[in-house]
């Protein structure tokens, strides 16, 4: 698959994590979430509430930009809702779905967006965790997306816990459901041990490939299957929302 096709597959899988009536937020550097949210709203979730990182409520996306806060992405919004307000919704438990990134993720769902190496002597100073530390424990559905499924991303142990996973000291807070959508498949933690398992592999990929490119022993869900592929009308829809193919930049 070329990068556009992988992007479209991921966007489609991510959109299916949204249910109708959900209130959904995206953050910074988030072309795939923006397109997934907009796709969901135009297909199976017309009643969802879309809150944009650029502060628009339910905008019509017909073009996206290199900044996910670019205010042009608020076209036709019905109102503004600030990030501070959206975070209040999250504290109330009303923000149902959030999309978050990760430079590293481990089998328990801990994510690192802070530093590669140690915090005292960084090998790579990452840009910062943004909303992860705050939202991961309190958001009912967290969708982590990564375009780089490899054993450098899916690691035995994260160098730094930016966003907490299921094995952490405050696990009483972790009543959420976490899904990971990568360029290879969809993973989740729907087992009694709350450890990562393959839920589906994207067309053209396999359980074996995913396990091989994962830095720890990855379980397989009992009902594992191939990820549903986007049909041509979905692909057309995505294309219409991102004519400049900004979504491919995430695979840079």
């Amino acid at each position: 698959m070329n990068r556009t096709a992988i992007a479209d597959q991921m966007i489609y899988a991510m959109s299916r994590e949204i249910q109708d009536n959900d209130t959904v937020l995206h953050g910074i550097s988030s072309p795939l979430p923006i397109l997934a949210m907009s796709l969901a709203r135009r297909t199976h979730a017309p009643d969802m509430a879309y809150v944009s990182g650029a502060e628009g409520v339910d905008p019509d996306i017909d073009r996206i930009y290199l900044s996910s806060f670019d205010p042009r992405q608020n076209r036709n919004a019905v109102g503004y809702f600030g990030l501070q307000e959206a975070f209040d919704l999250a504290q109330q438990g009303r923000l149902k779905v959030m999309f978050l990134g990760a430079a590293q993720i481990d089998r328990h769902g801990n994510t690192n967006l802070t530093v590669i190496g140690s915090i005292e002597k960084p090998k790579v100073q990452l840009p910062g965790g943004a909303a992860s530390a705050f939202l991961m424990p309190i958001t009912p559905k967290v969708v982590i997306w990564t375009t780089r499924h490899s054993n450098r991303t899916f690691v035995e142990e994260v160098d730094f816990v930016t966003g907490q996973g299921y094995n952490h000291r405050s696990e009483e807070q972790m009543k959420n459901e976490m899904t990971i959508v990568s360029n290879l498949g969809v993973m989740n933690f729907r087992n009694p041990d709350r450890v990562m398992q393959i839920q589906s592999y994207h067309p053209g990929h396999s359980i074996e490939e995913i396990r091989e490119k994962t830095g720890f022993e990855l379980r397989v869900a009992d009902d594992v299957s191939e990820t549903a592929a986007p049909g041509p009308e979905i692909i057309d829809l995505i294309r219409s929302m991102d004519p400049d193919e900004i979504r491919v930049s995430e695979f840079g």
Partner: protein
Amino acid sequence: MKKVLSSLSDAAKLVKDGDVVTTGGASFNRAPMELLRELIRQGRRELVLIDREPAIDFDILIGAGCVARVRAGLLAFELLGFAPNFRKKTESGEVITKEGACQPIMTGFRAAAMGIPSLTVRGMLGSDLLAITETLGSQREVEDPFTGEKLIAVRAIEPDVAIIHVHEADEHGNSRIEGPHYEDVTKAKAAKTVIVTAEKIVATDEFRKNPAATSIPHFLVDAVVEAPDGAYPCSCFNRYDVDYDHIREYIAAVNNDRFGEYLDEHVYKRIGA
């Protein structure tokens, strides 16, 4: 209403070496670039910069040697990659950054804006960031006095100066922002000193005609400066868009050790212009 209309140069002098400074806007949008360029020209040093998700605004000050420390939720150039000066100087240890979570920073501003010494948040509890911020004294675990729920108390952040770029202002500092406001109103309330740069200075009567459009009332503002294109190369909604090509040039300049030339071209040569 007091008159607080000022020149770029005089307004920039309200920022002192070592001050804690926050900037308006978010990422590449409505950052107060013109005032920041003036700070570079004036050779400001040892600034402590705080914001939720800044970008080239912080990076250019870092690159020009104005900055000692950074507190940010995330500092990057979005899909264009790392913030190049930030990455260089944090990895070399020249600039110190320790945090990396948006909510505590927004909450710190909000506590200061509300006039209380701290404010609690949910979430955060399992993050390694917490231990760092507890050491720094900016966050700590507490229990709610009524419910006993474990929460994180975030210490108020009262910047010495907030620098905010707006669409229109009058000579008293009344200011209008169009489109997303980000945390700019909160920052204006939180900071000890507020500098507003505006695309255009308009008559006070313009504000009286539509008071609902006023974002920041005059009494929060200490200096206001007319600065057309004052957010460039960042966007100013309804006026101009981000110049992504300029930002690519900037990144290339840093990465090819030509940042001095970039500053000569885009910052210093403007002296007296």
